[in-house]
């Protein structure tokens, strides 16, 4: 089999089965996701800026929380989505999983960077410093580097099938390592090796209920919903674009 034949055989998988069904299903979902994102972020931002009172200790800076916390959630969630997609890409060899993992990475990187930037802007008035080598901050910075490494690996390898396999391995190794990093920073703090701990502990998902007032909770919930919808929307659009791009390439290579 010549090299061209091989390539055509490989890429032509995209014409069959799931990508087609995905394209049909996702087309209908786009306007709904967009509507949810616009509505919830709109109402959430309005509440965050005008309805929520200034907090007792932090004053108006508390409003940064509403853009910061959901960004951090999505930054982590995107890596989870990427790792799950990578797992299916390795086990099932499903091309849609490759595309899903690849397209989630830049989105996750942007949300992670957003969480880092808004966090440090909030840190300056509150902790009197833009940055501290604290548990959460450090593990988030490393999460950003993991995203960047993953994207770099995808871009460095021309053969898409090979790139997908290798990037999937990296994503899974990174997922395992991310857990160890979080855990090791925690232990380092416990051992007293790493002294700084500025970031507050968990205040929303707690066994005894959220430790923040309901008036703050509502806009936060709306913003989280909106960010999730926005992430899903952008993700679906990126996956669709990638599939269309690959189809175009297949068609062009046939013509040539």
């Amino acid at each position: 089999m010549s090299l061209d034949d091989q390539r055509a055989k490989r890429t032509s998988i995209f014409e069959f089965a799931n990508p087609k069904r995905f394209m049909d299903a996702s087309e209908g979902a786009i306007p709904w996701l967009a509507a949810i994102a616009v509505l919830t972020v709109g109402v959430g931002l309005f509440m965050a800026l005008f309805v929520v009172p200034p907090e007792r200790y932090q004053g108006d800076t508390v409003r940064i929380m509403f853009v910061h916390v959901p960004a951090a959630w999505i930054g982590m969630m995107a890596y989870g989505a990427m790792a799950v997609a990578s797992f299916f890409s390795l086990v099932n060899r499903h091309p849609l999983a490759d595309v899903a993992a690849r397209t989630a990475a830049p989105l996750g990187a942007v949300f992670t960077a957003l969480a880092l930037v808004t966090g440090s802007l909030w840190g300056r008035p509150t902790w009197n410093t833009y940055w501290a080598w604290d548990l959460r901050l450090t593990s988030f910075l490393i999460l950003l580097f993991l995203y960047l490494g993953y994207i770099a690996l995808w871009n460095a390898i021309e053969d898409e099938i090979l790139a997908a396999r290798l990037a999937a391995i990296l994503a899974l190794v990174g997922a395992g390592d991310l857990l160890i990093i979080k855990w090791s920073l925690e232990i380092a703090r416990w051992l007293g090796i790493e002294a700084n701990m500025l970031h507050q502990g968990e205040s929303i998902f707690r066994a005894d209920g959220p430790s923040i007032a309901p008036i703050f909770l509502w806009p936060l919930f709306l913003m989280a919903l909106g960010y999730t919808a926005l992430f899903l929307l952008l993700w679906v659009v990126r996956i669709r674009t990638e599939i269309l791009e690959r189809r175009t390439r297949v068609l062009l290579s046939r013509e040539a």
Partner: protein
Amino acid sequence: MTAFWSLVARDLRLATRAGGGALLALVFFATVATLVPLGVGADLKLLGRIAGGVLWIAAALAALLSIDRLFQNDLEDGSLDLITLGPLSLETVVFAKTLAHWLSTGLSLTLLSPVLALLFNLPERAYFALMASLALGTPAISAIGAIGASLTLSVRRGGLILPLLVMPLIVPAIIFGSGVVDAALDGRPNGALPLLAAFSVAAVLLSPFAAAAAVRANLSG
């Protein structure tokens, strides 16, 4: 077992002879360590305090310096294909090559470290901690580096993106490794040492599977 050890011996010979990375890693280690006092100032008290962290980072960088060639040269001259035809599974091959890499870099970096610690005015009570942590932790660096090397095998200038992939992954080794030295400096009970050992064992045992999967993908691609 003979095949395993002959592969280790072969890689060791390649690393120590002309064009190998073993001596280069040592010189790099010494050079990076020399640059630090020039950068942060020659305050011996400060240098003694930061010696553990600085030497750990310098050792990790030095160990990673030649790791991009772990499989690259063998792929280029075809010996990797021959080795995979041999009796060893690819996972065992990766393990053997990682072991040879550690013997030629990590071990010799550990042996050189007290000399550099002397230049950094590291207090005597921390010497054992420094050498023990490097001896225990550098195998993890070689093992995770092997994953990076296998992932970048078909990248033309893989050495450029390899550090980007590997450095976030070796963070626990750096935290615990320099933590061991710090604990010894402060005279605290050393809880970081068993954790460093645990991370190292996990990395050495698990990374051959990830690296072998990546090498296999590269060979079939």
